[in-house]
């Protein structure tokens, strides 16, 4: 292994450990978790090393099989993909540590395939991020999705029905993406992103390119559950095992957002997508609609998991809104929100899973008095909630701040109002829970009264994420100048 092979080590190590987990898991069930964790640790270390390399020496690329691009497939680690790779592997690593006790309680007889599939899912997601080839993105997207369908169908008895809807909509999304890639290939004769970016300016007038852009953006909007394509998401997140949701909810939809950002930054270029057919504006307005509708629906829920699922729909709206503004500040806001929301949602879903682990409860009205029984868990929930509402110094404030600044710069006052109103709506549905947990008198519910913080591995991973939210809030300026500014420089 040499340092220039880093881009390919990140996904391939996970693929190798998927097989190892399955093999050793069949020999001895208890081996599955340590092997899966080792694989994730290797990939996390490679991603962090990759990010350091990118920050020190600039983008790294690796040619698969020694074939030079554009004929061969190229894996590229630049600022955007290194940032996403570290985010994905870190959240997955923490979720994997968390999932051990939760799987042992919820789905004890399916642990081995679950760990293997989770590794495959993460391999697909980092694969999407590191590849520089459009068709490769499709293949990794389907690897991630298929592994995702399988892990989400395990668990609650209603999970398969919810998952089937996801299979239909997810496959339509992937196929639309494939069709868009096909149109790009017919027009340019290449699948390498850098090569297409070089050839496209001469073809900007072509209707084929416009159709390709529309198909790719719609396909990814389906994958990222952007309003009005969000119908599959609440049921899937509600019925999947909590160890799975804490990995899937923060990352899976973000990967769709990443593909749109990647297309915008390094394939089409921002000029093409905003002039003529206003594709980016449509994306921004759908995002604004998602923010408002997702937040309102979240208030109406009495199930904690379902409320968090609707809140995810609202939060992916922020990302779409930031991309749709199509200016450098908006893009920074969107990327920062991908990072912040991954930490917040992972933390909140892990708390929800922790509450279920100890009490078996989901209903918000039943949580009265839980703040005294599960002090660490509910403290982490409070930090997550504060960040979701957007109160400094929690991380969520800063991404919203950049989105507001960018909306003002674009003179789009409706977006400013949407972001502010949605913060108030967030406050309504999160403070309702905090009020129940801390201020309400104890309900006398036996399950709540005997509750305590979940096992150490769960509590520690919850606390790491909660601390991460505060740390991200403090160092967000460092992240923006070193990692996100170079991405935006490509388009401005």
């Amino acid at each position, binding site marked *: 292994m040499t340092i220039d092979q880093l881009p390919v080590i990140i996904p391939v190590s996970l693929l190798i450990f998927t097989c190892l987990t399955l093999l050793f898991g069949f020999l001895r069930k208890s081996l599955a978790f340590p092997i899966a964790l080792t694989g994730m640790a290797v990939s996390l270390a490679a991603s962090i090393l990759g990010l350091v390399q990118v920050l020190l020496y600039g983008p790294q690329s690796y040619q698969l099989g020694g074939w030079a691009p554009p004929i061969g497939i190229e894996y590229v680690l630049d600022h955007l993909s290194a940032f996403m790779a570290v985010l994905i592997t870190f959240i997955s690593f923490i979720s994997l540590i968390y999932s051990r006790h939760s799987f042992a309680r919820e789905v004890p007889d399916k642990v081995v395939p679950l760990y293997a599939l989770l590794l495959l899912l993460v391999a697909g997601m980092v694969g999407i991020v590191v590849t520089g080839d459009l068709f490769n993105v499709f*293949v990794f997207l*389907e690897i991630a999705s298929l592994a995702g*369908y399988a892990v989400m169908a395990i668990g609650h008895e209603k999970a*398969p*029905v919810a998952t*089937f809807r996801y299979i*239909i909509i997810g496959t339509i999304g992937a196929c639309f993406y*494939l069709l868009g890639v096909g149109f790009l*290939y017919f027009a340019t004769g290449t699948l390498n992103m850098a090569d297409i970016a070089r050839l496209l300016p001469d073809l900007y007038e072509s209707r084929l390119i416009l159709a390709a852009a529309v198909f790719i953006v719609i396909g990814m909007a389906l994958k990222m559950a952007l309003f009005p394509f969000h119908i599959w998401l609440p049921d899937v997140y509600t019925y999947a095992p909590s160890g799975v949701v804490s990995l899937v909810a923060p990352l899976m939809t973000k990967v769709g957002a990443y593909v749109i950002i990647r297309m915008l930054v390094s394939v089409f270029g921002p000029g093409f997508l905003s002039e003529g057919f206003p594709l980016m504006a449509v994306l921004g307005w759908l995002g604004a609609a998602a923010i408002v509708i997702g937040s309102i629906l979240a208030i109406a829920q009495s199930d904690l998991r379902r409320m968090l699922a609707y809140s995810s729909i609202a939060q992916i709206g922020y990302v779409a809104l930031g991309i749709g503004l199509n200016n450098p500040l908006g893009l920074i806001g969107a990327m920062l929100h991908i990072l912040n929301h991954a930490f917040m949602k992972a933390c909140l879903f892990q708390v929800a899973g922790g509450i279920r682990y100890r009490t078996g409860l989901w209903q918000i009205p039943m949580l009265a008095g839980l703040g005294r029984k599960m002090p660490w868990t509910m403290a982490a929930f409070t930090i997550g909630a504060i960040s979701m509402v957007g109160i400094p110094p929690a991380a969520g404030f800063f991404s919203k701040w950049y989105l507001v600044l960018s909306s003002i710069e674009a003179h789009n006052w409706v977006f400013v109002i949407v972001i502010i109103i949605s913060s108030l709506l967030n406050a309504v549905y999160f403070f309702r829970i905090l009020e129940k947990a801390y201020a309400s008198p104890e309900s006398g519910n036996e399950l709540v009264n005997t509750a305590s913080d979940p096992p150490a591995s769960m509590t520690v991973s919850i606390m790491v994420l909660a601390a991460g939210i505060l740390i991200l809030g403090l160092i967000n300026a460092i992240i923006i100048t070193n990692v996100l500014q170079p991405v935006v420089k490509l388009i401005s």
Partner: protein
Amino acid sequence: MFQLLVDHYPYYLSTVLLALGIWGMFAKRNLMKKLIALTIFQVSIMLIFISSSFKTSATIPIFDPDLGLTNPDLYINPLPHVLMLTAIVVMVATSGVALAVILMIYRRYHTLDEHELTKRMRE
């Protein structure tokens, strides 16, 4: 107009199949029929790719000493075929996962009717 239709008929037919697939996925109530519609939808996209590589009076992309290497118009483009081989593998895997999920649903609810399942989900 007529000439356009004759030249491009594979694309029009594929588009009809594509629309048929999307219609089937949303209009049909039985989950099995939805899966069949999904397959039709995926196949239509493969047909579009394959049609794109077709050339009249060209041969398969294997080196032929009589034709030489100077004129690429004499060979059809192998890349879309290779891409679609990969896509077929993906499609088979999707069908496999979907069938497994359908099996799980049927064992639990003894029905594949969407309205019935939606009603049972609300309980």
